[in-house]
């Protein structure tokens, strides 16, 4: 299971670089509570964005974004609400993004940024 976790970890590093390159303010990373984990929390201007990072090594079993199921989206919404309750941040609006990252054996990772999936 080590290799799988390493891929996920690498994907999150890619995601952080991607988010920072967009000029967002990174607020939190791998925030955990009893229900689960938020990969990234960032501010895009006055909007709070909870980012789910999904990484795969190939698209042979479908794109990474296909693994974000409706149940997972529902959990992300609840987690975002809990994050807001736990922190003193008051954004104008809140949205959830998905970063679908494919890490091929060679070459740079491909990032597919899906904005406002909920």
């Amino acid at each position, binding site marked *: 299971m080590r290799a799988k976790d390493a891929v996920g970890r690498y994907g999150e590093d890619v995601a952080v670089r991607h988010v920072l390159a967009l000029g967002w303010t990174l607020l939190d990373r791998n925030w955990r509570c009893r229900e689960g984990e938020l990969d990234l929390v960032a501010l895009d201007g006055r909007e709070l964005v909870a980012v789910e990072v999904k990484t795969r090594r190939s698209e042979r079993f479908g794109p990474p974004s296909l693994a*974000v199921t409706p149940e997972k989206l529902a959990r992300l919404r609840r987690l975002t609400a809990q994050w807001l309750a736990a922190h003193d941040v008051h954004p104008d609006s809140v949205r959830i993004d998905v970063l*679908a990252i494919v890490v091929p054996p060679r070459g740079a990772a491909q990032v597919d940024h*899906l904005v406002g999936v909920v």
Partner: protein
Amino acid sequence: MLLGRTRSVCLVGLSGYVVDVEAHLAPSLPAFTLVGLPDTALAEARDRVRAAVTSSGLAWPNRRITVNLSPAALPKAGSAFDVAIAVAILAGAGLVAPDAASAAVHLGELGLDGRLRPVRGVLPAVAAAVAAGLPRVVVPAANAAEARLVPGADVVGVHSLAEIAARYGADVDVPDSEPVPAIVPAVAPAESPDLADVIGQDAARHCLEVAAAGGHHLLMVGPPGVGKTMLAARLPGLLPDLDEAAAVEVTAVHSLAGVFDPAGGLIRRPPFENPHHTATPASVVGGGSGMPRPGAASRAHRGVLFLDEAPEFQTAVLQTLRQPLEHGEVTIHRSAGIARYPARFQLVLAANPCPCGNSVGKGLTCTCTAHQRRRYFGKLSGPLLDRVDLQVDVTPARSTDRPGAPTSVVARRVGEARAAAAHRLAGTGWRTNAEVPGGWLRSRLGPDRRLVRELDQSVDRGTLSLRGVDRVLRVAWTLADLQGHDAPTAKDIGEALNLRTRGQGA
């Protein structure tokens, strides 16, 4: 925001509506929704289209795809939208040229392997597209022959989705797959049998000739085995070929009913429908859940609807025939909408004289009670029988009887009589004597009341209604056409009266 669009055709009854198929690809989690009132078969298009696109070697766009079939309020049914949905998505994803995709109308069902499968009702659908100013239609190769029957259509028959994509500029290999064969109806239309097969029965044969010449409805009454069914089956052979407009109409109905073999081109011979007496009203006039399909009455449009053992039919079936007999079309209301199908058929009824069938002549061997006999025929009486111009008794043949004239000879006489009638009725919109209203008939007879004296007497005696007079006159005109007379003679009228009343006079 990515948008792809193309066109397809939705059939409501025989009328087609051009449907805009739009695909919107949003950069969001992969999903596929289909809106615009699809039925179950159409909603399943989502799974077929996805499999077909990936099987064709094209990349399925991982986007939130919304496909809309516009006008969204018109209920749509069937699998014929598959190809248009796939093309709209490919255009939205930028895999094919959007202009080429939106310029054409697409019809066809997709297999999971990306091949195009034939669909029903291509002829009326293509005709609707051409009428809407969209002559370019892409259809499954198996339907191409049928689509080309529509004048003015620019038909492209294709085998697979990859072939369409390659046509529209996609970078994809077209597989050399085996084409999907056309659906050939199980029952091939048999050649109409020849009238020379019928031994004797001169009176009934003459009656059949009159029916064919004037387009009159016909009732034959006789014991079992005298050849009523044989005679009825030979009526379509006596009728002339369908004209262009009628051929398109008839072919469209048969295409929609799924009983049309496009190999032979348009249906040019009058169809013959012979429903069994256990038929339900829905099977005779059309029906089914959702969008109703045409029934036997519509499949017999411009041809012959033959009800063998007519009194054995359910009363409801016989009653439902009254609307098409009156208006030449059936209107069926179902949840998915109202369908209108043409149903201008020539009705031929065959009946036994009583339930046991032996009540002919003196009826000595008949075992039926008077009450049974009355009940048996009571089913036919009333408004239905009132519309049947020719009512004859068919009596058993004798051993000395000889075969009569063959179909070709009688058909020529019928053709000449029909030509005479058409010449007289030119400019009126009617084609056969059976369609002409009574007032027009009477006015054409002129002031000579001697001709119709016998009819007037019958009316005064109360044995013939005024409508009955009109019917007798119609048959008399047909007899005159057959004899080459300019107008019915007293003899024609007398004979017509005889043919109308099963030889019992009035």
